[in-house]
């Protein structure tokens, strides 16, 4: 018991000593365990002499367990170390000796230094676990929060990016749409161009190009006066033509064709007379005035060659027909008619538009077939005279009339069609050097043609001509699709009839709503819009149409044409005003003005397709041809002359060219003829014409109105 008290007293002294160390010390002081466990010899360590006995008897008593390994582990925790008992193994091989620097048998005070080792890991863990977990959660929350926030902002930024991207895409999409519309338009234009080209080729093949060109030229002056609007469009057309129709190709083709043709001609035994040469020369002179370029020359050549070929083919037939159906008369049974026309046109042109533009109606109405009694040379003159106006050209025409037989074809035909077509054609080529060149060369070819006919000297015979009824129709490449919007059945019938006469296809709407719907569904070339209509008036309808169709010409037909009303019409998107009641001519002017593109094409087509092939043109020999070409080329740069020509400027009078030289007329004769023409009452030639373009125009229209007369 005393020991116990001591131990208790010791314990009190060793209050700061850990329980394990106290128990250990107490165990070593207990003498009853000496045989099992005891201090080492120096008292600086203790020895477990019998591990088995220690485990069985002492561990359970002192440490409440019987696991020696655990006891060792605990010793190790308190930084006791097992001492190797290699040196003096006085306690046996199975004894365990443990030592701690502060664990001595007689040094009880140092016992409190023996502390349980703080395992670094565990300590860290505990320290980290305790204070850090709470901070960790907050931090992580904060971190998460901030990361979420940053994610949010980055997402927002990404969203903005996407949005702007989408906006960009939308913008591009709209641009693409616009471009697609542009492409569609371009395609439409290309279609038109292709038509032009096809027609051109057809014409080339048919060899009628010359005639067409000539027609164009002859009436070009008048058109120029009439329609300043057409100018631009035609120029554009011309540009397109130029672009897509490389000169080189034309030239090449023409050269090949020409040589081929001349070879054939020679084989057939065609004579290349001097007269032909002169004809070529005259032509070239004309061409010079107009302005000829390589292309034009080439084309003229082609045409000439084609003509020669035709001549060969139809030579047998050409005697009969002296008068051709001009323009759209369609009488293909008159092989020579085109030639005549050309001649007539040429002569008129020769004065360089001094003559008023020949009224197409005159052409149509006054088709005259020269009788056999007429000398061939006069024939050409007569024809020319007849075309512009029989009265003016009374001397020759009188003769011609005697031998003429003319009858009307039952259906409506463009009385002025030739004029219109020519006008259109002219316009397309006017002001364009290219056109000028072509014209010039065409002239050359014509001159040669006329001369050829002369040479052939085929006796003219009385011939039956078909002349269409006197109405005039512009030549359309395709029938213009016109939407007629009018609530008045009477006006609608009248307008429809006009449009029908003008060769348009007509669709009808009876009010503004119908008009908008139709415009939505169909494509039209032109809209004729009444203003006062039930449901939706014309102005509102136009405004609506303009939202989706900015281009189709819309022309208001109205009886209300006060200035402020007209302003309203234009501001709604209408292109023009056609005051009611309008005349056939007024409507036609509108169509011509706004559908020029269609007319130009038609010009080409009609000339190439409809003008009958002409016989009676002897081939030029190479000398004559070349001289003609050279003459044309030399004048290629004469832009002024070209312009003057197109506009019917008076300067033509200065340089009179005897285009009839090819026909055997001397210059003197030619001048006499010209004088006669100029003095004629009915025509304004030269300077006068240039001054009176409008007047001329109206005159022409008046003439068209006249009824056709049958002359026998």
């Amino acid at each position, binding site marked *: 018991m005393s020991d116990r008290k001591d131990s208790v007293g010791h314990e009190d002294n060793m209050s700061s000593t850990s329980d394990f160390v106290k128990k250990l010390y107490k165990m070593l002081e207990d003498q009853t365990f000496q045989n099992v466990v005891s201090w080492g010899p120096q008292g600086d360590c203790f020895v477990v002499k019998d591990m088995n006995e220690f485990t069985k008897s002492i561990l359970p008593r002192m440490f409440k367990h019987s696991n020696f390994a655990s006891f060792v582990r605990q010793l190790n925790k308190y930084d006791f170390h097992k001492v190797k008992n290699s040196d003096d193994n006085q306690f046996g091989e199975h004894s365990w000796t443990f030592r701690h620097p502060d664990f001595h048998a007689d040094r009880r005070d140092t016992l409190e230094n023996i502390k349980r080792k703080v395992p670094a890991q565990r300590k860290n863990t505990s320290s980290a676990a305790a204070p850090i977990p709470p901070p960790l959660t907050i931090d992580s929350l904060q971190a998460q929060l901030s990361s979420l926030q940053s994610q949010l902002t980055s997402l927002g930024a990404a969203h903005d990016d996407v949005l702007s991207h989408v906006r960009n895409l939308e913008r591009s999409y709209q641009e693409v749409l616009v471009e697609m519309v542009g492409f569609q338009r371009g395609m439409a234009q290309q279609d038109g161009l292709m038509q032009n080209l096809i027609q051109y080729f057809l014409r080339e093949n048919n060899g009628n190009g010359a005639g067409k060109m000539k027609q164009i030229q002859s009436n070009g002056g008048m058109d120029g006066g009439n329609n300043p609007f057409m100018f631009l469009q035609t120029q554009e057309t011309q540009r397109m033509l130029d672009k897509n129709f490389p000169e080189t190709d034309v030239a090449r083709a023409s050269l090949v064709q020409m040589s081929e043709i001349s070879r054939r001609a020679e084989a057939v035994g065609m004579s290349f007379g001097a007269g032909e040469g002169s004809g070529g020369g005259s032509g070239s002179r004309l061409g010079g005035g107009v302005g000829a370029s390589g292309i034009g020359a080439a084309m003229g050549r082609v045409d000439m060659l084609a003509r020669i070929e035709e001549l060969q083919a139809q030579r047998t037939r050409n005697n009969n027909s002296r008068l051709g159906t001009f323009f759209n008369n369609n009488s293909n049974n008159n092989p020579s008619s085109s030639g005549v026309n050309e001649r007539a046109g040429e002569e008129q042109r020769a004065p360089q538009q001094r003559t008023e533009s020949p009224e197409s109606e005159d052409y149509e109405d006054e088709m005259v077939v020269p009788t056999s009694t007429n000398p061939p040379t006069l024939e050409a003159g007569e024809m020319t005279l007849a075309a512009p106006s029989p009265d003016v050209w009374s001397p020759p025409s009188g003769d011609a009339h005697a031998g003429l037989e003319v009858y*009307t074809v*039952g*259906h*409506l035909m463009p009385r002025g069609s030739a004029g219109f077509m020519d006008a259109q054609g002219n316009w397309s080529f006017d002001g364009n050097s290219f056109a000028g060149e072509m014209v010039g060369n065409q002239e050359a070819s014509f001159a040669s043609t006329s001369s050829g006919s002369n040479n052939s000297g085929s006796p003219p015979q009385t011939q039956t001509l078909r002349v269409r*009824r006197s109405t005039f129709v512009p030549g359309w490449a395709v029938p213009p699709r016109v939407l007629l919007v009018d*609530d*008045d*059945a*009477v*006006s609608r*019938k*009248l307008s429809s*009839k*006009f449009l029908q*006469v003008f060769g348009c296809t007509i669709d009808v709407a009876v009010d503004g709503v119908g008009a908008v719907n139709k415009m939505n569904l169909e494509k039209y070339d032109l809209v004729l819009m*009444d203003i*006062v209509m*039930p449901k939706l008036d014309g102005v509102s309808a136009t405004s609506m149409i303009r939202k989706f169709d900015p281009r189709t010409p819309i022309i208001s037909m109205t*009886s209300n044409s006060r200035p402020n009303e007209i302003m309203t019409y234009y501001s709604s998107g209408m292109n023009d005003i056609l005051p*009611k*009641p309008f*005349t*056939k001519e007024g409507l036609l002017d509108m169509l011509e003005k706004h559908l020029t593109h269609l007319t130009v094409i038609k010009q080409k087509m009609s000339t190439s397709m409809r003008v009958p092939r002409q016989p009676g043109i002897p081939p030029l020999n190479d000398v004559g041809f070349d001289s003609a070409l050279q003459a044309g080329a030399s004048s290629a740069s004469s832009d002024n002359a070209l312009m003057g020509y197109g506009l019917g400027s008076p300067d033509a009078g200065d340089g009179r060219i005897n285009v009839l030289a090819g026909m055997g007329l001397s210059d003197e004769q030619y001048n006499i003829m010209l004088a006669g023409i100029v003095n004629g009452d009915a025509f304004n030639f030269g300077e006068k014409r240039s001054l009176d373009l409008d007047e001329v125009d109206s005159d022409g229209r008046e003439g068209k109105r006249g*009824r056709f007369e049958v002359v026998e």
Partner: protein
Amino acid sequence: MDIFGQILELDEEGTHDFSKEMVTAYFEQATTTFGSMDQALADKKLPELSALGHFLKGSSAALGISKVQAACEKMQHYGELRDEDADRDLAAPEALAKIDALLVEVKAEYARAEKWLRKWYAAHNEQFAEP
């Protein structure tokens, strides 16, 4: 009747089908319009009277029936409370009174024109199907 002459020119040779068709349409339209005018006058609908006047003015002008056309133009203006001849504005009752008188005149002019046209076609061996 210059305009009518031009319409006749549009006829195919030897027929008057087209012009007759137009005239027939005019007769029908005028008859209908007069009925509408009577009704609008009874209802005192001046804007409608103006529109009807404008309408008949247009079709009359298309055929060149100028007296009907002129009278209809007056009605158009009266319907807008406007007397162009006197160059002054009208009060509604006054305008209605004027239209009342004018309508009689228009009908009379129209009757004359119709009679003339029928006679013309009869003289050219064309008969109208009676409406």
